[in-house]
Structures are given as C-alpha cells and as structure tokens.
C-alpha cells in the first residue's frame, strides 16, 4: 500500500510575479517516472509543501493539455505561502495530488462557455479555460469576464492580452471603481454590474464562476435573471484543508468533503449543502 502523504519532489522551473503578493510557479517533476505516471483533469487541486513548514492547498492552474509541468498561483497569506514565496527558481518543493473532482468539459461539448472570475478566483478557472481553448473546436462561443480590485491586482496580465487578441474569445476585464489607471482600456465596475451590462445569452450556455464569496453571491442573481439554470452554473469551493483525501475532517461541509466530493460543484448541488463554506 502507498503512503499517500508522500509528495512528489518537484522543482520550480519558472516564477512569475502576477500581482502584489501573488505569484505563479511552474513546477516540474524531479523524477521522470513520476512525471510519466502523473495525470490530472481540469478542476483538480493539490497539496504543495515546503519541508519543515507545512503544506498549502491550491488548484492546479495550468491546463492538462500542457504536458510536462503543472502551475500553481498563490497569494501570500499564511506560514506556508510565506515560505513558498521565499523560494527561487530551481528550488525543490513537494506536491501531492491531483485530488478532487473535475469540470465535466466533455459534457460541455457543443455549448457556449461563460467564465466569470474575480481577483484570485481566476487561477482555478484558468486551468479549464486553457483546457477548452486547446480543444477550441469542441465549444461554441467562449466568453470570459474577469474583474479585480485594481489594474495591478489582475493576474495573468500577458494571457489576458493574448485572450483579448484572439478572435475566438470574448474577453471583458473590469476593475473596481477607483482601481483604474489613466490608460486602462477595460471596464470599470463590479463583476455583477458588468455581467448585467454584457448580458450574455444563457441559451445552450454553461457558466463557471469563481471569486470571493461576496462576488459569487451578487453574481448568481444576475445569472438567474439572464435565464441560467442552477445545474448549468458551476463553481469551485475552497475550505481549510489538510489531507486532501477525505480523512482529516477539516474541509467537511456537512457530509460533503470539499476535497473528495468537490471542489467543483453546480449551484444546484451547492444549494443542498449546509452553509458551512
């Protein structure tokens, strides 16, 4: 039997500064045999560790279509993320995963996709966005609405530019009022208001929403107004986690474990859970 707590040994190939206190690490396997047996799907997450400090939970932010590496994007918040932020390119860290369920992108074939993200909520969607863009012929319109507090807080700035230049992606970026810069070309306003303004069709459309709880709370009524059905609205949950495999008890929401029953969930399913997330 395998010791499921033993992580893969990874090294940091590339560090990208995304926003204040937000970084993206591209990680590669130290052991080629590990790389060979590793596979994951969009929506899954892992436990990233600094030996001697502990583990931290983040989604895998890169797409499974991009082989040979995984990426994670994190904001410095606690002890482990502080230690992670002190790492340099070439340093070794631990990774165990992938854990959790996935976005059902095969079921989304032939549909329009609407991705709505706020702040550091884009990384969990970036994985599925790139996954769908790399299989572009499977989907119809792809619309991305992304907002952050200020221009500086937007993550993946280069990729936003790339999506903006693609004719097969409708990208709307927005910043909170007061967060704009003189040469800001995107929108100004909160995500729910911009969603109302853009008013995408709900016809044959899947919506995936990820962001701070307040953004999700105010975005949902707009989606319902637009005619989205509860089972066509997806989000990805976050709770304090330790083990990632349904044992330590931390992430439990009633009988539901975010780590193994989630993190991807439809609004229809979410509604049935006790409010403990």
């Amino acid at each position, binding site marked *: 039997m395998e*010791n499921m707590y*033993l992580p893969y040994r990874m090294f940091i190939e590339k560090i990208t500064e995304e926003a204040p206190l937000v970084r993206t690490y591209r990680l590669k396997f130290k052991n080629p045999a590990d790389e060979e047996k590793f596979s994951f799907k969009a929506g899954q997450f892992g436990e990233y560790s600094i030996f*001697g*400090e502990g583990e931290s939970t983040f989604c895998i932010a890169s797409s499974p279509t991009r082989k040979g590496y995984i990426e994670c994007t994190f904001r410095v918040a606690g002890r482990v993320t502080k230690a992670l932020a002190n790492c340099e390119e070439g340093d070794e860290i631990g990774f165990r995963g992938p854990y959790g369920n996935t976005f059902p992108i095969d079921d989304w074939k032939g549909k329009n996709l609407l991705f709505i993200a706020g702040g550091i909520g884009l990384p969990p969607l970036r994985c599925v966005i790139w996954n769908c863009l790399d299989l572009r012929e499977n989907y119809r319109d792809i619309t991305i609405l992304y907002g952050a507090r200020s221009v500086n807080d937007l993550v993946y700035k280069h990729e936003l530019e790339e999506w903006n230049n693609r004719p097969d992606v409708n990208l709307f970026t927005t910043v909170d009022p007061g967060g704009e810069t003189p040469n800001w070309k995107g929108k100004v306003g909160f995500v729910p208001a911009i969603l109302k303004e853009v008013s995408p069709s709900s016809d044959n459309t899947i919506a995936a929403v990820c962001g701070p*709880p307040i953004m999700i709370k105010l975005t949902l009524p707009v989606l319902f107004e637009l005619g989205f059905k509860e089972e066509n609205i997806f989000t990805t949950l976050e709770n304090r986690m*330790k083990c990632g495999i349904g*044992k*330590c008890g*931390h992430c439990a929401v009633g009988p539901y474990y975010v780590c193994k029953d989630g993190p991807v969930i439809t609004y229809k399913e979410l509604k049935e859970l006790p409010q*403990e997330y």
Partner: protein
Amino acid sequence: MEYKLIKLEKIQEFINSLIATGKQVLAPKQKKEKVFFSLIHSFEEIAMDYIQTAFSAKSAVFPKCEELYTFEKNGKETILNNPQAPENDTIVFGMRPCDGAAFDYLATFFLKENPDYHFKMRYDNTIFVGLTCSSGDEFCFCSSVGISPSDTRGSDLMLTKTENGYYVEIITEKGKKLVEQFANFFEQIEQIDKTKYVANIQKRFDSSALKEKISGAFDWERWEETSLPCFGCGTCAFSCPTCTCFDIQDEANLLGGTRYRIWDTCALGIFTKHASGHNPREKQSERWRNRILHKFLYTDEQFGILSCVGCGRCIRNCPAELSIIEQVNAITEG
C-alpha cells in the same frame, strides 16, 4: 465459531506469556481514581473490573501524534522516508464492546476509501481482545446506538467472566491464531448462554425517533441554547473512540525533520478558519452541531454506521457537564 475457557489462574499466565514473547500488551490500568489503557509489564497491573477507561485504546492504531514520513535535506535535494512499521504485535486487551465497535468503525473509515497506510500498518499488527461488561454506569448508553454490552464487533477474541473463569469466543482468524499459539492455557468448552453475565444497559434515547428528526436538525433553533455551556476545549473529541480528525504539522531543523499528524477536533475555532480570516463555523454552537450531526447523521449517510458507540466518555470527561444523551433527547423532543 469456536469457544474456549480460560481459568482465572491461567489468564495471568497467558498475559505474562504474551509479554514474554515480546507482544506489546495495552490493558486497562488504575491510575488514582481513573483507569487508562497503558502498556502492561505484568498481569497484576491490569484492572479487570473497571467500568470504562478515561480514554479509549484508539491511539494503538491512530496515535495522538504520528510520523507520516521523515525528510532529510541534502543540499538542494530532499530524501523522503516512510515510517518504520512497529516490530511487535500489539494486543489491546480487555476493551469494552463499545470500543470494539469503535475499532470496527475506524477500520471502515480509514480503509474503505483511499486506504490509510499508517492506520493499516498498525491495525494489521494489532489483536483486539474484548471484555463483556458485567456492569455499567449512568453514562453508558451503548444499547441506544445499537450496540450490546457483549457485542463482538471489532474484537478478535471476546472474553466474558463466568464462575469458572473467562469464557472465550473466537471471532476472527487472527484471534484463532493467538489462541492456537498459546493453546495450553485454554480449555475446550461448548457454547454457553452469556445473558446472565451481561450488564443490562438501559436505553437512554429512542434511536428511531432520532433517525427521523436528525436529518432535518441542521436548522434546529435550539443549537445555541443547548451548546451554551461548551467552551470548545475538545475533551469530548480527544476521549472519543471514533473521532478521527487530525492536523498535519512539521518539526524540522536545517538538516531535515518529520511531518506528523496530530489529533485535531472540530470543537476548535481554528479547525475551519481560512488563511483569509473567513470561518465557515464561526460560533461554538455551529461546531457543537457539527459534532452531533457527524456522529448521528453524516457517517450514517457515508458508511451506514453511526459514529457514536455509547461509551459515555464525552459525558464523564466534559468539564462543562454537557451530555450527548440530553442533547439527543432534546433533538428528538423537538
């Protein structure tokens, strides 16, 4: 099933032989006014007539603090090492049937899905010898959760004290092997009716009424009122034979260190607190509710087993004198 008898004078020799052959014997031992499962060096140390130990023997298979693996730093490389499996068999001797049922639950929880390496390593090396209850106290309520005071669930061997010595039921292959290894202490015997040796544990609540009410109990309006005395110390969880929650922590120096798992509990506010400061269970009443619903609803949904075995420890040990029996009765009464 096979049955044996072990005479009173022989049980002493049996235990001492177990110890002599290098087995680790964990048995109830009196320490001041309480009884604890302790590592025994000779039979005289064992308290055979206790009602309930202060803590269960859960730590035999799920230690309070346990090594998940060690890491050594070698320049930019890290070497990871699996923990060593225990060399000798452990015998949990003289546990009450409620604790046996708890070990049964623990095995389901840890091994059914994503089997747990560390639990299995210890569980496979442990032999469980149960001891029928001849008496109980006002905190015992096994019969209310479907367990009897002579229940053999989770035991490899089950002992019942009779006038002639201990009546032994051989429940599993593991138990049979142990008896065969020490065959000269045991006598052949026919099956007996245990009834007159078994305590009568009163039902303290109506489990079918509870089952009816508990699924809608999340929104019950009396959680705050009934949990008011709770100050969130976690004693209930740490003394509970079925609580399984843990934290993961590192202890290290520049050369390397160990990643441990350590008992944790949903009674503590920090248990669910996000790094952002957001806490899904902000209030103590919400944590208390989670404990009760986990025991009587969530594991029933997940595994078809209640994760309360009626041992009564959380009531005996609670410094705020909260009673899970009173709580359950309050829910069933509405």
